[in-house]
């Protein structure tokens, strides 16, 4: 398994002035023989091996091949007998270790054995081989050109304009057909991106439990909870647009935008949870600063100031949902969002709200 440099062309005196091998340069030639090389044989075969060293190399290779054999038996044993069946996490983990170790050894044994074989037992010599020409000869090209010209003439395509033109005409729209066929992949977007499930009177229900929420129950300052429209608790498509962060903010610090005076219920404010960057849930809330942080790309919104962007790649504030309470004291939306939620899109434009 050692590199046998001693037999290369270099004489010992020369050896001293061979600088250390530079990474990225090939090793000096002739590193694999076990005995002084003979004259190159026909086709480059013919190192003569030192039979004693060769036999010990053979034994090492044989050891590794046997290892693979045993590992295969072990693999079958681990699969069928012990730990055998999976079905809970401990067993699955144990099975993964045992089968995995066996499989690794199967490959490793073969790989190491073959490496020893090729390095120490194969007698093929290094040779220099001519590269064959990459291109054809000039005559070949010439002959082909002639043949092609002749064939083209014979086909009649060159003289017969009508034939040629209608053939082109016939093939022109063919490329469109696959595209046309893809039309039914999905419906047109229409105005769907502008609306969510929320409308006037929809109750806010707690994500996960589906319970409606009374304003009086959501009274801990700094509280935060995710709510969805009643009736959409189990509909991922609706949740993906309608999920809302409900925050209980200190009224005195709240900067209320003009026109949004009655959008909150005593400091309880609702913002879309869908980040205006590319749509991750903006789910992290820092109570001391009242910042909402989207963990995907760290857009940061100021909950006190209409969720305006204070850092990160998002370009727009989180849209605010106008909320109120119904006759039973439950929190409800008083309308849909006044602007599209989530990431921007071409048709979006600047919303009026």
């Amino acid at each position, binding site marked *: 398994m050692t590199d046998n440099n001693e037999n290369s062309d*270099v004489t010992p005196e020369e050896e001293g*002035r*061979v*600088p250390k091998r530079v990474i*990225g*340069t*090939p090793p*000096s*030639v002739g590193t694999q023989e076990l005995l002084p090389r003979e004259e190159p044989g026909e*086709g480059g075969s013919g190192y003569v091996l030192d039979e004693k060293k060769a036999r010990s190399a053979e034994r090492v290779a044989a050891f590794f091949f046997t290892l693979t054999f045993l590992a295969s038996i072990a693999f079958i044993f681990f699969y069928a007998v012990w730990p055998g*069946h*999976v*079905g*809970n996490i401990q067993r*699955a983990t144990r099975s*993964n270790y045992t089968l*995995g170790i066996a499989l690794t050894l199967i*490959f*490793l044994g073969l*790989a190491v054995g*073959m490496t020893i074989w*090729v390095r120490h037992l*194969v007698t*093929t010599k*290094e*040779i*220099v*081989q*001519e*590269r064959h020409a*990459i*291109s054809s000869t000039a005559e070949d090209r010439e002959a082909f050109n002639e043949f092609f010209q002749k064939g083209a003439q014979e086909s009649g395509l060159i003289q017969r304009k009508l034939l040629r033109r209608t053939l082109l005409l016939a093939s022109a729209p063919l490329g469109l057909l696959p595209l046309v066929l893809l039309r039914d992949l*999905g*419906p047109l*977007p229409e105005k769907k*991106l502008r609306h969510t499930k929320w409308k006037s009177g929809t109750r806010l229900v707690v*994500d996960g439990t589906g319970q409606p929420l009374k304003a009086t129950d959501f009274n801990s300052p700094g509280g935060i909870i995710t709510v*969805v429209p009643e009736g959409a608790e*189990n509909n*991922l*498509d609706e949740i*993906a647009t309608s*999920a809302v962060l409900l925050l209980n903010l200190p009224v005195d610090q709240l900067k209320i935008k003009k026109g949004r005076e009655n959008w909150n219920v005593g400091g309880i404010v609702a913002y879309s*949870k*869908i980040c205006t960057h590319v*749509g*991750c*849930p903006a*789910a992290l809330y820092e109570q001391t600063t009242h910042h909402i942080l989207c963990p*995907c*790309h*760290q857009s940061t919104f100021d909950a006190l100031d209409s969720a305006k*962007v204070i850092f990160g*790649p998002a*370009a*727009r504030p989180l849209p605010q949902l106008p909320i109120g309470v119904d006759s039973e004291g439950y929190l409800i939306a008083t309308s849909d969002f006044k602007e599209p939620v989530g*990431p921007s*899109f*071409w*048709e979006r434009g600047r919303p009026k709200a």
Partner: protein
Amino acid sequence: MSTTTPPKAIDGAIGYADERFAIAGFLRAKSKKVFGDHWSFMLGEIALYSFVILLLSGVFLTLWFKPSMSEVVYHGSYTKLNGVSVSEAYDSTLRISFDVRGGLLMRQIHHWAAVLFLASTMVHLLRIFFTGAYRKPREINWLIGIVMFTIAILEGLFGYSLPDDLLSGTGLRITQGVLQSIPLVGTYLFYFAFGDAFPGHDFIPRLYTIHVLLIPGLLLALVVAHLMIMWFQSHTQFPGKGRSNNTVTGKAFFPVFLIKTNAFMLFTFAVIAGLATFAQINPIWLFGPYTPDSITAGSQPDFYMGFLEGALRIMPNWETNLWGHTVSWNVMIPALVPLGLIMTGAAVWPFIEQWATGDRKIHNFADRPRNAPFRTAVGMTTVAFYGLLWLAGGNDIIADKFHVSLYATTWFFRFTIVIGPVIAFFVTKRICLGLQGKDADVLHHGVESGKIMRLPNGEFIEVHEPASEEEAAVLQGKDLLPAPELEEAEDENGVPAPSARGPLGKVRKNLNRAFAPDEVSVDGHGEGHHETGPHDDEQLASDGVETGGGKAISRH
């Protein structure tokens, strides 16, 4: 011991095939082919054999995986999720992990192989680039490589989106947001891809078809083409003693390369199996099923998506609204520009180089990166650009580990993404020129022998001895042909030819200058060593180290 006929069974089989397909002649020619030997050739092999593993383990996974987004209530071996409503895709992936013997192992093998496949492809591409191995006649194989790399990234993204866990679902959400941001057609693309609202019910089945059929089929075809072209053209070789542009030095395909490459394949398999055994990857049961309003903090995509993630993170929040239409530069630029720049740049590079240098020769020698300073510097610029974006994709982790503010890391990357690559360019170029100078020095003055001599005046000097032939051949092995002139660039009076005038001609001239090897003379070395080097005798020249190209060019 040696006989001329193989054992009966083999002889019989070959005879049978030969009488039908003339196989003996074919095999004889093929098995004599010589393969050069260099560690960097193995990078492509790792990619190839990881791909083989992906095909095999992937087929295993298809036997149980259900590509469906229908909701089911989970009841199974992972008791913590019992009673939770999950998609069938997620449910079946949990079943593969916990209820199918060897299922977890195969899943982890599949995922680790994907990681290794992309990593080795990347490094392989880099080595091709930095050694100029993409030059004529290998441009087409370079293009095939770029295409394979691009669709392999997609394949990986689609693959890890299949289990519909919280992590990958978030990735899909981002993909959807990016689609939607594309001007003009974005919303249509979104609705067509998802078959209605996000997440809908169509997307994972569609990804599945693409993941198990379309892209693997395409990749397989490209891999085969890649290998056939590689076989036909042979590897490049680094310069060395006794090597020339028209020869390959190495050992025959049969038996040496055949055994070696199989051994290497098995090593690759062993490494992947070992990783899958000991290093957990993508434990989707810990992430939970996807819902659009949940997320885990600090989540990271697979490494090959990291640079896109980083680009999205550091992009300033530019958006314009004009005539009722919105353009989200903050999404479009990071999603399209880095990938587009790198892939398109890589794809057109060989042709730009050809155009700028006028070099249409056949190149069978691999350049040492230092000998092509401009190319190497451009390469490192790209590496820096990619690497910084990749790091920016983990800025939250960096902020956490180094206790700096998250926003500070973002600003840091916003600046370094601009200046980092520029610095990389100039530093690399200087290093290359320095190394060239050192090479020239070795050729001029020899190498330090380690022997110290005391001169009569008491001064100590180290004896320099001439470089060995092997070393000298390597050092000399750069393309010493005169800097390829632009044929019609200037006439005798120094008047630029028509093609060299105009903006395009100017660009070409400047590029030509950038590529020109006489850059080295800046350091006072350069081509000069050719005349004075201690080993610059007939012998080296007749080794054919740098004369080979001439023959090839004469064919034009």
